């Protein structure tokens, strides 16, 4: 599915204040894409993602789902079923007595019953690497933080959404759980789901995204491939955004006389570029395999 934002502006109005959270945003998330959104706290990321399934609607401008305006009630209802939302700390939404019951909530709301419902629950638990026999009857409140996160994720993907929105899916997790969750997300993307991810981890963003949207104060700062976006290290720094560790290293090496491309962000390509660069600078190349 394709989600298109057309000149979307969103203004929060409260009795004591008004705040423009999104300003004139135009972009589209393409079918099957891994789309990341980066931005400092308060840059409008959370407001933006709530427009994707119509929890919020634009103050002006349009959000189109496969060409249909989401302000239409029927389009919105249909979109809610096709878009899965994984909010920050999604384990906060757990409520049922058992893991299976909690995971069944969304597919049951979508109208599944009996063996179909059971199959959806089993599939969702497999997708988040939780053993059905071990976890189905456990209380979600007695699991570890990482397991709770995965149950909550299963609770969203159980209704088989085509597009998955993840708001900082790895926030507050230990390193192992972080990797596990990112593995799950990447696998879901490989299976054909469109992914929209908000993240503060520039390494994750660079590693997995097809395209990155950088927001600042509700406005689009950059939109492009990770290489393009992270080549603006200085501008990103100004709005309190970092770059991936590799890019940071590239920039520091370049400051000391290297001439590496600023679009580098992944480790393999970086190693090759450094080797080429050393050769250019006249340092003899050694066989790294044998040396290691």
């Amino acid at each position, binding site marked *: 599915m394709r989600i298109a934002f057309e000149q979307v502006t969103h203004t929060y109005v409260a009795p004591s204040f008004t705040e423009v959270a999104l300003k004139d945003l135009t972009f589209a998330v393409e079918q099957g894409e891994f789309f990341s959104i980066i931005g400092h706290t308060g840059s409008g990321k959370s407001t933006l993602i709530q427009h994707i399934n119509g929890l919020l609607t634009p103050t002006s401008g349009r959000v189109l789902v496969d060409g249909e305006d989401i302000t239409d009630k029927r389009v919105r209802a249909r979109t809610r079923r096709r*878009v899965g939302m994984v909010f920050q700390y999604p384990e906060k939404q*757990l409520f049922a007595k058992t893991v299976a019951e909690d995971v069944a909530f969304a597919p049951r*709301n979508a109208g599944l019953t009996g063996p179909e419902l059971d199959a959806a629950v089993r599939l969702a638990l497999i997708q988040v690497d939780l053993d059905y026999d071990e976890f189905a009857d456990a209380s979600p409140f007695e699991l570890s933080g990482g397991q709770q996160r995965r149950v909550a994720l299963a609770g969203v993907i159980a209704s088989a959404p085509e597009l998955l929105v993840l708001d900082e899916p790895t926030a507050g997790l230990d390193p192992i759980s972080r990797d596990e969750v990112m593995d799950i997300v990447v696998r879901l993307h490989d299976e054909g789901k469109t992914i929209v991810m908000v993240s503060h981890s520039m390494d994750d963003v660079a590693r997995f995204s097809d395209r990155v949207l950088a927001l600042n104060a509700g406005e689009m700062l950059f939109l492009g491939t990770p290489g393009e976006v992270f080549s603006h290290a200085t501008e990103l720094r100004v709005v309190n955004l970092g770059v991936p560790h590799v890019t940071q290293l590239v920039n520091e090496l370049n400051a000391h006389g290297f001439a590496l491309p600023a679009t580098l962000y992944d480790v393999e390509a970086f190693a090759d570029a450094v080797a080429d660069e050393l050769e250019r600078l006249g340092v003899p190349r050694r066989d790294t395999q044998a040396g290691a």
Partner: protein
Amino acid sequence: MKAALGRYYNVQSPVHALDPRVKIHLLIILIVGAFLAHSFMGLALLVIVALVAVRVSHVPVSFVLRAIAPFVIMFVIPLAFNMFFQSSGEVLFSWGALTLTSGGLYNATFATVRLVVLFLFATLFTLSTSPIEICDATDYLLAPFSRFGFPSHEVAMMMSIALRFIPTLQEEFGDIRKAQLSRGATFDEGGPIRRLKGVFPLIVPLFASSIRHAEGLAYAMESRCYARGEHRTHYHELRTRPADWIVLACVLVVDVAVCFI
């Protein structure tokens, strides 16, 4: 729209600056005054006091009215009852079983004005006194009862913590609601049973997070050596200044006047 009752209107004004303990006493004295009043003149005096207080408080009149608006029904129903079901004096008009007498009209209006005055004072009190101040004042005013084993300080502490967490839980409730909506939940469709069932996905996570908050807060308080007891001091010491005494005296005079006119 959210009711403005019980909300604090944060501005600086002489009314806001009064000692909250004195303000609680003022409120009680004025409420007693409203009940003691037996003539329209007396009530009018209290209305004037209320209007002056609103004026001095820098709270916009529209805001005060909005705070009272939800209770209009509580004014109208007694008004109607008193008007038609009390009969004294001459008959003004009658229509079927309904008869309006001059005495009924007088009593009904009197009772309603009294009710409005009561609400005005109570509303102005909460509009001009922050929740924290109310808690601190409660702490002081209940302190004498701690001699008889009443945990006055703990009650005040519990009150202030509860108030502190209302916005937090409100926000969390909003988050949970959005998450469950996104999972296809419906909260406003179907029969009563289905609606009741629809509440669980909202309430259970909210309870779970309240317990988490309580636990976290308990650890934070303990690690900062919180201990119960009457000898705790306050960061914001409440002070009663000459102005407080003057206002208190004036209001007492008003009360006495209300009794005699």
